[in-house]
């Protein structure tokens, strides 16, 4: 069967499934201004975040890469970058990097506008409206799945996720990769205990070493800090739910990645440079994870949840899949695909994967996910690098 979806072609050849205008503050101080501008525009989002000031070295680079990645995502037609003026994460530099995508990018600093925040908001709305009109001219075209980057997330997991929603996502991820597309699996804390399997699936020795070193490096860090992480995994709740070992828990997580070969490990928010399945360095925190996936270029994210989670992403639509019958009932408005029929025995994982596949196609073609309808536009940037401040203590 010829599998296709409707999307927007960008100047750099990437394909978006949404056509949004992004208002990106370079620094926390202008978050409110960015939000006020986005609120006045059609189909615009504000990427509010708490960073951008006083960051340096790898910590700066990580935030910078994430903001560039979010604006570069093909779901974004154009970007308005707003700085305050005195921060070290400069709006001009951010805009320069975003222009590598050849998409429309404008920028200004609030301190350069006479009239304070009100004038800055008016200025931003004017620029944004112009961009919106251009964006509306764009027509959707047909594309194949090789243009798709899928994010694989799970949050609020229970013992049911690993035997229902996660393997369902695994089948779909493999299918997208067979069609020439790309998938990204974050959450390295839930690879622990399965590294031998991930290594077996590595495309070469170098990738195998990187997987090994990433996981053992993390375990060594914990040992150095005197943290008995593995002694508390699985958690008491996991054990009560039936998970007996860390291997069993992590196997449930990596089930989302199917059986495809692993191309490599991406840094947080790093876009993959080839198709296929990639791992991404990220510690298993849902909003940070989905921010990193969207910054890496994922146009859509599949999120499995057992206990239920409402969160979403402003750049990439998030499709929620839940295997727990009670959660599907109690939090129905936050769930897109009810996978509880696996548990009730009414449907197999394969049958559910067909239902998920149809939902993905509808989402790609423009149907809003529950998180989109409810307005969940969550952003959190993982600070995974040494900051001189993190070792400060009061004596």
């Amino acid at each position: 069967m010829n599998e296709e979806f409707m999307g927007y072609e960008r100047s750099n050849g990437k394909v978006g499934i949404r056509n949004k205008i992004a208002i990106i503050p370079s620094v926390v101080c202008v978050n409110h201004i960015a939000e006020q501008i986005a609120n006045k525009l059609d189909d615009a989002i504000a990427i509010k975040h708490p960073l951008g000031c006083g960051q340096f070295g790898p910590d700066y680079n990580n935030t910078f890469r994430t903001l560039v990645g979010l604006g570069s995502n093909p779901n974004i037609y154009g970007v308005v970058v707003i700085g305050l003026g005195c921060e070290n994460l400069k709006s001009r530099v951010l805009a320069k990097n975003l222009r590598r995508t050849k998409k429309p990018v404008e920028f200004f600093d609030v301190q350069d506008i006479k009239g304070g925040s009100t004038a800055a908001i008016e200025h931003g709305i004017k620029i944004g409206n112009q961009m919106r009109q251009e964006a509306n001219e764009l027509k959707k075209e047909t594309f194949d799945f090789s243009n798709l980057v899928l994010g694989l997330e799970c949050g609020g997991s229970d013992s049911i996720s690993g035997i229902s929603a996660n393997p369902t996502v695994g089948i779909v991820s493999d299918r997208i990769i067979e069609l020439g597309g790309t998938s990204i699996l974050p959450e390295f804390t839930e690879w622990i205990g399965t590294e031998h399997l991930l290594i077996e699936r590595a495309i070469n020795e170098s990738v195998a070493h990187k997987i090994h070193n990433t996981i053992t490096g993390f375990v060594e860090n914990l040992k150095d800090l005197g943290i008995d992480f593995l002694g508390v995994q699985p958690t008491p709740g996991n054990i009560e739910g039936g998970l007996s070992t860390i291997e069993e828990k992590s196997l449930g997580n990596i089930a989302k990645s199917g059986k495809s070969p692993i191309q490599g490990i991406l840094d947080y928010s790093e876009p993959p440079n080839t198709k296929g399945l990639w791992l991404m360095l990220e510690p298993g925190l849902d909003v940070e994870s989905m921010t990193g996936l969207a910054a890496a270029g994922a146009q859509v994210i599949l999120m499995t949840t057992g206990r239920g989670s409402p969160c979403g992403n402003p750049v990439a639509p998030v499709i929620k899949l839940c295997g727990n019958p009670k959660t599907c009932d109690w939090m129905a408005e936050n769930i897109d695909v009810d996978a509880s029929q696996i548990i009730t025995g009414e449907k197999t994982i394969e049958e559910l994967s067909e239902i998920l596949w149809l939902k993905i196609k509808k989402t790609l073609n423009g149907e809003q996910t529950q998180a989109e309808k409810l307005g969940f536009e969550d952003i959190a940037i993982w600070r995974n690098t040494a900051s001189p401040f993190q070792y400060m203590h009061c004596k």
Partner: protein
Amino acid sequence: MNVKFIIMNTRDNCATALEDIDQGEEVDYNGKKFKINQSIPLGHKFALNDIKQEKYVIKYGQRIGIATEDIKLGDWIHTHNIISYYLKELLNQ
């Protein structure tokens, strides 16, 4: 009544209960009939074969732990009779 359970991979030697299963309930698995030896809560596992001490418990077609005692067909499998081989290896380093 048929007991509800799921087997993640054909290589698995355990199944996961999709409902609370009472002790003594009968399972019919591919024509192999056996009794459940302890009550198994939803999401927990039971053995599809006898698993000798020191042998692997397989789920998702993968090793999830080592039996710390002989496990009989129909036995509840959990932290009382399996341990993580990953942790065991790590602790032995």
